[in-house]
């Protein structure tokens, strides 16, 4: 049993850390409702006018559409490739298995700038025009990892004897997959997809190197901040991005049972 003062101090410390972490985020939400376009404290009043201004902005709308398009396609591709990779690695008994596994995970562990520059160099070497497609490819590299990690972790946690039990009861390969394997990994697959989408939706670095003239939402924010104009709209967009990325992450954490889902190994 720790003493009274130890407990009080510990709580205070935790509170300070939380304030440190979340004050900037709360501020952004508040500024999104700021009547003045100058960011100063205290804010003079609350308004919704920046929201309508944001929605009316064609640039923002097209960036949002692009972000959604890239996120959804990259997630879909990652879903197929990542799950397949997880199944293959799970079954493999080859000695080089860990090396292959590491190579799958590397794109997420590597700093984004390395992935970005390499992809950029690769595309210009191959004469590929930077376009929506190249952004999707860039995002897929790290989206695969999230799906792969989630599915593999689940496969490792499921009893191997379940598949044998189903076969023993008369189920062929397809039936085993449909009735046993798929239901058991379904939540991990969905969680992986949500995390992948969240990652893609707020990605800046790899996008910078793989985008041509297009702007994803984060790139638009980046540009707007650098120019120092239209900050109220930036606050609105950032609030929106926060919501769109936090919600899937929370759902994913629930699906995989606890905070273990995190956005996986370090980095980023």
């Amino acid at each position: 049993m720790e003493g009274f003062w130890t407990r009080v101090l510990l709580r205070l410390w935790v509170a300070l850390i939380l304030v440190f972490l979340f004050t900037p985020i709360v501020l952004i939400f508040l500024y999104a409702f700021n009547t003045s376009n100058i960011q100063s404290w205290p804010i003079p009043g609350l308004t919704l006018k920046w929201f309508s201004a944001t929605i009316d902005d064609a640039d923002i709308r097209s960036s949002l559409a692009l972000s959604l398009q890239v996120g959804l396609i990259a997630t879909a591709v990652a879903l197929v490739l990542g799950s397949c990779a997880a199944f293959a690695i799970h079954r493999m008994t080859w000695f080089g298995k860990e090396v292959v596994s590491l190579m799958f995970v590397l794109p997420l562990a590597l700093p984004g700038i390395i992935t970005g520059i390499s992809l950029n160099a690769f595309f210009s070497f191959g004469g590929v025009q930077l376009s929506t497609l190249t952004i999707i490819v860039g995002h897929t590299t790290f989206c695969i990892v999230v799906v792969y990690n989630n599915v593999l972790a689940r496969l490792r946690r499921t009893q191997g004897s379940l598949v044998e039990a189903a076969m023993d009861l008369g189920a062929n390969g397809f039936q085993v997959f449909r009735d046993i394997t798929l239901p058991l990994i379904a939540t991990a697959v969905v969680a992986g997809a949500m995390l992948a989408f969240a990652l893609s939706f707020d990605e800046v670095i790899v996008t910078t190197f793989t985008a041509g003239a297009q702007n994803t939402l984060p790139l638009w924010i980046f540009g707007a901040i650098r120019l120092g104009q239209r900050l109220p709209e930036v606050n609105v967009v950032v609030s929106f991005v926060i919501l769109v990325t936090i919600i899937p992450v929370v759902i994913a954490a629930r699906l995989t049972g606890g905070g273990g889902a995190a956005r996986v190994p370090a980095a980023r």
Partner: protein
Amino acid sequence: MTEEPLKQPALRVEGVRKSYGQVVAVDGVDLVVAEGEFFTLLGPSGSGKTTLLRLIAGFERPDAGRIELGGRDITSLPPYLRDTNTVFQDYALFPHMSVADNIAYGLRVKGVPKQARVKRVQRALEMVRLTGLGNRRPNQLSGGQRQRVALARAVVNEPEVLLLDEPLGALDLKLRQEMQIELKQIQKEVGITFVYVTHDQEEALTMSDRMAVLANGRIEQVGTPVEVYERPTTEFVAGFIGISNVLLRDGVRFVVRPEKIRMLAEGEQPEPGMVVESGQVEEVIYVGMSSRYLVRLDRGEQLVAVRQNMDAVGDSRRFEGRPVRLAWTPDHTYVLDTGR
């Protein structure tokens, strides 16, 4: 016996061999299990008993040999085409299905119509005394209940042979003993051939019609529990099942079971025909119903004798360090066929 028509055995294993790399798990096993028999594969871990069971179930393919089920060669059939069902050591219940769906799964994939399925699942639940728990999830059941579900899920398919891989291993002693009796009753009731893997010699002796003792991937002895216990043919079997005292006298090696040894009181005359040897009690181990006496014979060997604790508690200890005479009837000893 001779008048019975020639029936195909439920299971026939011929010269089956399986190795993993350098390790030979099953090294040329022949077995014949009759219809409706409770047959046990008994052996220590690493003896190949579980591998043999997995070969019969079809999870592994033998490197050599042949496996027949009801006269049909099934050596190269995948598990889902074999008329065998398995009760797994870890039960392997499907966590995302209710108890009833677990039990019904085998019937479902075989296309048994829903009505018949429900009825048979109901009957299976009754058989394992879990009526009313059909809607539960496996994780809402106790270990003993899960074990019963695993059994029901296998038996409901009425396989030619039911394979059980140490099904009681995870249960505590009391529950295990209850389940031993219950399993045996269920087996008689449904009349299905059971092939039962265990490392517990008492379990094997209690439940089996016949048993095979395995060591190092080979069968050491096959027989009824009485045959195997009373007339072990190898030193391994004698040592693995029960406590056995191996003695060498006049060039003959033989086994005397502890309960066959009589400790003579001072001045007591042995019965005619008994062999008597003298020694000294080194230690008395109290094991509840009886005590074990470790006796150092004058000729050097150590013997274990067992006596029921009919005297007052703790009384047996007074024997420690005293000289003693041991007597047994030569009829109760068994000459070992060491064979090597």
